[in-house]
């Protein structure tokens, strides 16, 4: 006599099958694509986009540091300036210690008619991790490796240290990177 299928049994079987299929599904994180080289629909830009714009001397680019004078003195992005009034047509990137304040400031600028006002996703820490200290895992896919060349070149342009390291070793803390960079006297 067969035992009836219970709800718990069916759910457990479904979980097991989905877990088993995950073994061959690959990483759930999307490969680095052209998406990171353009502003996101939510009005954010990655540190790599800002770095690219700075490097190519994008016309009308304004980088705004929302943090206090002390933090600005310690470190700021190249060409960063305090918040002020901007003209329509200028591309404004605001950043702070994190995303929240910058997101609101960018929204206010857009409300004031600056359509190309963006905020730096993940704040100033993103500049340290993504531009100055980018890492690639040795087991990265061909797609990730192709994108890596562009990142590494950009990082070196800004005095960064692109490295190929294991995933575990790549977990350098942002605070550590910031301290190391500041000790190096890297202030733009």
């Amino acid at each position, binding site marked *: 006599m067969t035992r009836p299928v219970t709800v*718990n049994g069916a759910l*457990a079987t479904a*979980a*097991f099958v*989905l*877990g*088993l299929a*995950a*073994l*061959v*599904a*690959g*990483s*759930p*994180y*999307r490969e680095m694509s052209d998406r990171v080289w353009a502003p*996101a*629909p*939510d*009005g*954010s830009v990655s540190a790599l986009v800002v770095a690219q714009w700075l490097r190519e001397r994008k016309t009308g680019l304004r980088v705004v540091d929302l943090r206090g004078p002390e933090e600005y003195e310690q470190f700021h992005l190249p060409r960063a300036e305090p918040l002020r009034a901007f003209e329509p047509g200028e591309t404004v990137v605001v950043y702070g210690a994190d995303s929240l304040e910058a997101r609101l400031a960018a929204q206010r600028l857009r409300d004031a008619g600056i359509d190309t006002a963006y905020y730096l996703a993940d704040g100033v820490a993103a500049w340290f*991790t993504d531009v100055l200290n980018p890492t690639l895992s040795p087991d990265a896919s061909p797609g990730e490796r192709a994108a890596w060349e562009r990142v590494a070149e950009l990082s070196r342009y800004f005095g960064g240290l692109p490295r190929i390291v*294991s*995933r*575990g070793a*790549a*977990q*350098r*803390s*942002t*605070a*550590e990177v910031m301290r190391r960079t500041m000790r190096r006297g890297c202030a733009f």
Partner: protein
Amino acid sequence: MSAPFYEFGLFGQEASLLVALAIGVAFGFFLERGGLGNARKLAGQFYLTDLAVLKVMFSAIVTAMLGLFWLSQLGLVDLSRVYLLPTYVAPHSIGGVVFGVGFVMGGLCPGTSCVAASSGRLDGVVLLGGMLFGILLFNEAFPLVRGLYYSTDLGQVTIAQLVGLPYGVLVFAVVVVALGSFVVAERIEARAR
């Protein structure tokens, strides 16, 4: 259309707060209906007579994990835009111990104490008060513990990154451990009855 909706601008700030409220209410409702607003039921976890907490938590973990994994594989969620809480080993360990001691002493955790209080249980109200007092105390004492609070920072790290395993292997391992735990929990509960 891809999630997280808030990150991609589908929700504004206000709408996201309303969504959070709805999720919170649903969370509390199902905790209450599952009996987890009752300290006796939660204490059963420590006496190995009622392992509902373990089963609820593992069910939630496996559901969320498989959901995020496969929705990402289908291109419906961009995991790189899902916020990860940074890991601070020492302060999180100490916080875990404090949490555990409070859980054993009170029979409720922060979420279930809110559920217990809102369903009229006096112990839930007392614990909720204690929790708010603890938050106040921590904020007042923050200058003294700031060094510890920011120490041993691993950054925004996932377990797969930390141990260097592919995500698929970790997903499968968690599913197997969860299903094994359910079987063991059922046997322990049957023995206690």
